[in-house]
């Protein structure tokens, strides 16, 4: 790329990196590497954000994300996480219906062995 294209890409950079070609070239190369990597990372980040949103929405109804998705998979509901997170934000009643479907299909981990409470530990007053 010639200097003009590099300086055009360097708009908004800090200090000499937007003006001087030697510094701008390094920074622009780095910026392009980051954008290549982050086009792939963005897909991961968005999915993680959807999952957090669904988790928060289902926990308001007493179900956690793992059990909720398991219930949906059992009922063969193929809504993806993007749509589920939008439903949880904008359509609360529909989301409540989905949580109920999931809870009927998979009520939760009944056979999980919880750690026993030690009854003889005295708590210092």
């Amino acid at each position, binding site marked *: 790329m010639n200097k003009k294209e590099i300086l055009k890409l360097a708009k908004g950079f800090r200090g000499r990196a937007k003006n001087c070609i030697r510094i701008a070239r390094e920074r622009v190369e780095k910026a392009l590497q980051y954008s290549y990597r982050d086009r792939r990372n963005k897909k991961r980040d*968005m999915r993680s*954000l*959807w999952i*957090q*949103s*669904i988790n*928060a*929405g289902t*926990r*308001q109804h007493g179900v956690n994300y793992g059990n909720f998705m398991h219930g949906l998979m059992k009922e063969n509901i193929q809504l993806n996480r*993007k*749509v589920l*997170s*939008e439903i*949880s*934000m*904008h359509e609360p009643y529909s989301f409540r219906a989905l949580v109920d479907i999931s809870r009927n299909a998979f009520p939760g981990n009944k056979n999980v062995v919880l750690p026993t409470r030690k009854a003889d*530990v005295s*708590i*210092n*007053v």
Partner: protein
Amino acid sequence: MIFPFPSPSPSLFLPLPLPPSFSDIWNNTWYPKAKDHINTEKTWYVVDATDKILGRLASTIAVHIHGKNLATYTPTIDMGAFVIVFYCMNKFSLLETCSYWYGSGFFLSNLTQYVNAEKVAASGKKRTQKLYRRHSGRPGGMKVETFNQLQQRIPERIIEHAIRGMLPKGRALFNHLKVYKGPDHPHNAQKSIELLIRDKRVQKQR
């Protein structure tokens, strides 16, 4: 495989012309606008910390301050609530303050709910064994205190320390936590709601 036809865009299926404020919420992840996180319209919660296990209480409070209990959680924007934590002092000083407020005819029996108020609790031997360390920066400047000593000195710091470790770094979210020793706080104008704690083991067992 090459699909010869372009993938259908939403405008093909929607009535044209679109209204000016249309946004495609099903194909774009929602991002909060400025009006969705105005500071003056955030929720305020209030919690009484007496006899609650420190870590379990701090965990719930941190979740609410961070905003992770909301389906609209966005990591880059502060969408959480404010939380006020207050707790009673030990019963003797509470009696003094109440006598001062209500006059000398005030008896401790009027406060049966506060009689065994013991401030924030910790299970096991943590009262004498949990250490709070700080360093002044100079050589040999490590200062160590136990839970009990810090509670005598500055009881608010115990809860603040616990919650600060559970929040993201930076002062912005931490400033949404307000801790007060004693049963009153200066935020009556905010009309705060009682914070519901779902952890079953947060209350100290007696």
